[in-house]
């Protein structure tokens, strides 16, 4: 890493920026924070390129750094949350434009959920509707995390099979935007 050139640094950025941002996004559920943290990690890497001895691959180091920064951010948000009952994210980002299609899709989803085995559905709903962490679900239901992981996977598998025909009409979730 000592002699990292700007060109190879740029390549590292181009190769991993998108994947790292979408990873950070799953952890934070907020675009600005996700982008912020990933950029921060890249800047850190550049600034410390003389000091850092990388034992693993640069890619693994980037993922690890993004993960740690996100956890710090979450910790910080929890403190902030004590002030405001609902996190700002709920307010700012929960703009739901429900078209007729979407309403119908949600009905389809509800029908598909009925098809899941009881425990499997319960776990999926706790994760998606109540926004509970796997650990929290495991504690409440007195199950192992491994079970939660597997049941979530099972739910996703069944739902995908059931909703397959309707999925193409769902608007693209990932949208890149460029301006300026």
């Amino acid at each position, binding site marked *: 890493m000592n002699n990292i050139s*700007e060109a190879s*640094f*740029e390549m590292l*950025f*181009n190769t991993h*920026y998108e994947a790292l*941002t979408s*990873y950070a996004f*799953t952890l934070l*559920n907020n*675009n*600005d924070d*996700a*982008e*912020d943290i990933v*950029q921060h990690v890249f*800047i850190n890497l*550049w*600034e410390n390129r003389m000091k850092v001895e990388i034992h693993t691959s640069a890619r*693994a180091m980037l*993922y*690890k750094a993004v*993960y740690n920064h996100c956890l710090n951010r979450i910790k910080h948000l929890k403190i*902030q949350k004590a*002030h*405001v*009952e609902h996190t*700002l*994210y*709920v307010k700012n*980002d*929960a703009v*739901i434009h429900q078209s007729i299609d*979407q309403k119908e*899709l949600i009905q389809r*989803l509800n029908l598909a959920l009925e098809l899941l085995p009881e425990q499997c559905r319960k776990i999926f709903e706790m994760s*998606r*509707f109540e926004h509970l*962490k*796997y650990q929290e679900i495991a504690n409440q239901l007195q199950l192992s995390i491994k079970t939660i*992981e*597997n049941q*979530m*996977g*099972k739910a*996703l*598998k069944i*739902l*995908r099979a059931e*909703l397959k025909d309707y*999925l193409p009409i*769902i608007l693209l*979730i*990932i*949208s*890149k*935007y*460029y*301006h*300026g």
Partner: protein
Amino acid sequence: MDNTENIETLISKFLAGEASPEEAMLLEDWKLNNPKNMEKFIQCQKIFALANKQATKLQYNKTKAWKNIQLHIKHETKVISFYQNYKTLLGLAASILIIAGVYFFLKNQSSTLEISNHIVSAQNKVKHLELNENSRIDLAIGSQLIYDNNFGKTNRNVKLNGSAYFTVKHNETLPFIVDLGNVYVKDLGTKFEIKLSADTDSIHIKVDEGIVLLFDSASNAIEITASERALYIKSTKQLITNNQLLGYDVNLNFENTKLSAVIAQLEEKFVAKIILANPKLNNCQISAKFKDEDLATILAVITETLGLTYEKQNNEFIIKGEACN
């Protein structure tokens, strides 16, 4: 990894924000392995979004991100090289000044030295300077500008003590740099104003046209574009712009502080204008701590806590409400 039997477990783990860095990498590899895999992943992502009532779309701007990062990379190298040059130049200038002094003292005649410093002071009224390369400087009363006689030839460096308004012709090979004592402003084609605060700890920069770069010897740097303002706090080496999204080293502690006082502090910190729509709100009190938060977040927390609302109009934040909680 092509273990399709368990891939849903990995995907749901990732989408639920439960994946470790290693798992995230594993999934990324799987996705890129086959376009079918990518399609499957997108389908799963849609299901998760559908089942999430607060669904937020993943959005990012890679071009902008790279620009941000580049800004840091570029400045770092520039600052170092300039700072080193500057130090040698300063050393050289100092020794020449001493020689010049001795020379003047002995001979009492005009100097023919190659480098000498020009010192211009505006004592009683604003001084208008036209430097030999078409840059105009309006020097405020009580301010001082220093440059050497290679200005316009091998450098365009000026040292400013005080305040001045600059109208600078941009020259790629010979950047115009204002030295404010370990803080520098570099023009990128520009009309701008530099004001030293009465407390002399903060420097105000206002850009009317073009872009300037504000940087210090600690490698902090920020680009200020037209109609933006920025504040630099010398003692803490803080750079703050009025439309900055991120709080730079913001550390605010309020304990039963009146809202009017809170606003005064925020206005100074963020170089922003905040208005209370209702004068009754001046006496509302709040206790809160903010560290490294942006202005919008701070205002949201404050207004939420007090049962008020705020909105942004043009460049002003307006806090509204009948009374406090």
